[in-house]
């Protein structure tokens, strides 16, 4: 944890997530989806589609986007924004890789007001 500040915690390893896949992180009622792209980039957004709350962690990952498993909205992993004609944004969280370790910034994770 040397270079990382106290707000970052380890949540798993890169190899825990399949390439072009996602895993879930639970915090009480909040579920965060952590994605790994084909190029081993890591992103975290809330596991809740802005359309009708579909679990985005279960979608198909392509480029830096995920297609929602319920009605195929395409959501950007970078900022949580719906692409194309669809409108809506899902919360995104800061994650970074330290070697193989995935670290999540918990500053806005425990702020439950935002997840309402």
């Amino acid at each position, binding site marked *: 944890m040397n270079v990382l500040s106290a707000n970052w915690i380890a949540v798993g390893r890169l190899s825990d*997530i399949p390439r072009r896949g996602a895993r879930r992180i639970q*915090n009480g009622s909040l*579920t965060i989806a952590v994605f790994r792209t084909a190029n081993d980039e890591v992103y975290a957004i809330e596991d809740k589609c802005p359309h009708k709350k*579909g679990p985005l962690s279960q*979608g198909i990952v392509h480029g830096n986007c995920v297609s929602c498993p319920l009605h195929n909205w395409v959501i950007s992993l970078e900022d949580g924004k719906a692409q194309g004609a669809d409108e809506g944004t899902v919360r995104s969280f800061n994650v970074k890789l330290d070697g193989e370790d995935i670290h999540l910034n918990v500053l806005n994770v425990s702020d439950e007001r935002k997840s309402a």
Partner: protein
Amino acid sequence: MEQLLAVELGDSYKPNAITAVCGCTDLGHDEVRRLIKAKELKTIPRVMQALEWKTSCGCAKCRPALNYYLVCDWPDEYEDDYQSRFIYERVHANIQKDGTYSVVPRMWGGITSAIELRKIADVVEKFDIPTVKVTGGQRIDMLGVQKEDLPAVWADLGEVGFVSGHAYAKGLRTVKTCVGSDWCRFGTQDSTGLGVRIEKFMWGSWTPAKVKMAVSGCPRNCSEATCKDVGVICVDSGYELHFAGAAGLDIKGTEVLGHVKTEDEVIEHVVALTQMYREQGHYLERIYKWAKRIGVDEIRRQIMENGEARQGYFSRFIFSQKYAQVDPWSERVSGKDKHEFIPMSDLKLEAAE
């Protein structure tokens, strides 16, 4: 690229008449399928590279289609890319609107037993499953199962021999039957037994879109075989084969494929028909749409009149079944794809702070 297509596809290549698979390519499903075979492309990255895909790793439209085409065309060589499958095929359960899943065990031909029913009752109580429903395909559906519970539910069901009913699959779903000559005074043949036989022969096969079948013991047609993808009507002189029906967004009665005399012939013709569809269908295109595109007469000609073509389809289906008939539930009970079912971590932040 234009040149390559003209060479490989010959006169049939008409660039302006093509509907592209998706925004990642200008090629249509037919062109992609034919080039996969002609150029022996055996992985998704190879297809995308050789056919000059415009995106780095495709999208949720083309990847599942390519994955199906490769599974179908190279059954022994291609390694299924689970990240290119929709979630219901990836975790072998249907996702519901609230993110929970539904579980439908296979009941061959719609037949069940006291042991199976008792097990289902036990599982429903043990896992607090909120809804149990009889489906249109004569199966029992347990709805509202938590994702984390799926492997344990399957393990319990597996104890009495239940396997996946593939109720989520673009593949063989159900063979619906009536009680036929076993019980019904009108029954002409053993429609139940034949339905079970067909289902045991064909389960596990992936197809462009879902395939639902039915066998009725007489023309009264209690299993509604004449609106299915494939239907069989038993008659005194043998079996009438039907196909290309629909009873969903569209309603359409079946077309008659032909008449055969024995159960073995039913299996051979139904399997050959399904394989022809597997090899030619566009991903997500139901049998009735494929038949409209190819022509009912052409299909009849190949399956009913051309014994050599029929045998070819039949043996290619059998070959691919060697790799397809693996129960996905028991694989996952034994630990496959564990990462799908458990969260990576549980932070419990509020509690910790």
